[in-house]
């Protein structure tokens, strides 16, 4: 059975750390980073990248259009 795996790339400098993507993520992939970007925001990142299935819920709720989502089918 084919399984999907995903990954997200967050534009760290555009992210404002609003946390909406973290809450929207059904697979608990995302979290806010302890590090901050140049504006001082704790930007979002893949804390548990192995969980991501590329569902795009994070990019759907992102107000700053700073998330790109990738998905592949793996056997």
């Amino acid at each position, binding site marked *: 059975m084919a399984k999907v795996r995903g990954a997200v790339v967050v534009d760290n400098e555009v992210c404002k750390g609003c946390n909406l993507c973290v*809450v929207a993520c059904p697979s608990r992939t995302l979290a806010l980073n302890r590090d901050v970007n140049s504006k001082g925001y704790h930007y979002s990142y893949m804390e548990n*990248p192995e969980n991501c299935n590329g569902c795009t819920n994070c990019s759907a709720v992102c*107000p700053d259009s700073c998330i790109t*989502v990738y998905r592949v089918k793996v056997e």
Partner: protein
Amino acid sequence: MPELAQKIRDIIKPENIVYAKSPLMNDDVMHYCPGCSHGVVHRLIGEVIEEMGIQDQTIGVSPVGCAVFAYKYIDIDWHEAAHGRAPAVATGIKRVMPEKYVFSYQGDGDLAAIGTAETFHAVNRGENIVMIFINNAIYGMTGGQMAPTTLVGQVTSTTPYGRNVDLNGYPLRITELLAQLPGAAYVTRQSVQNAAAVRKTKKAIRKAFEIQAMKKGTAFVEVVSTCSSGWKLSPVDSNKWMEENMFPQYPLGDLKDGTRADANDYSIKG
């Protein structure tokens, strides 16, 4: 770990993209506060315009309020209106260029307070425009004052003890009123607090633009939104507060879905 990093690198390839920012959304970092609904709705409008292939035929009308700078973010031609006058400006644009797509983008103060007359009469004329209405029950740009849609008891900087109906009157359900007008072809109320809601709102915006092409009358999309700075809540808590407090007052769904109600025949007979 290096194995995992390699796995991720294998996924992050252009051919595997399932969501990327629309090329119509430019690289300027939005001026909105973290978690602001405006950013989501801007993106949805940009995506709809891109998907319909109408970038070269669309003119947006931005309001006065937080979204005054909407013109910075979507790569289309824009016309920045005075406070509340966006429906009149959009009317002027559409009337001299009926073949173009014209949409206004307004907040609750702009659309439902200072611009109420322009809003009503544009819809009542059945202007073939799309009107996007962001209702977050507060004035964001000027620092969190009461809006016409502010809830009873809601604390704002001009209702510091909560909105009191004796002093301030009632929250205005302008969308319900507009749905009564024969010129309104499509009136819907949506939200963007989770992925499912965002996808529904995008469909509604797409439908609104398609109705414009069909010249059926005004297509009106309210988006019940958050203002975490104004509400003094985190973005996540704002969404909860919105679901608990805004949705009962402003229930989601289509208020009117049809063509212009020619059944409402007001012409003089005989």
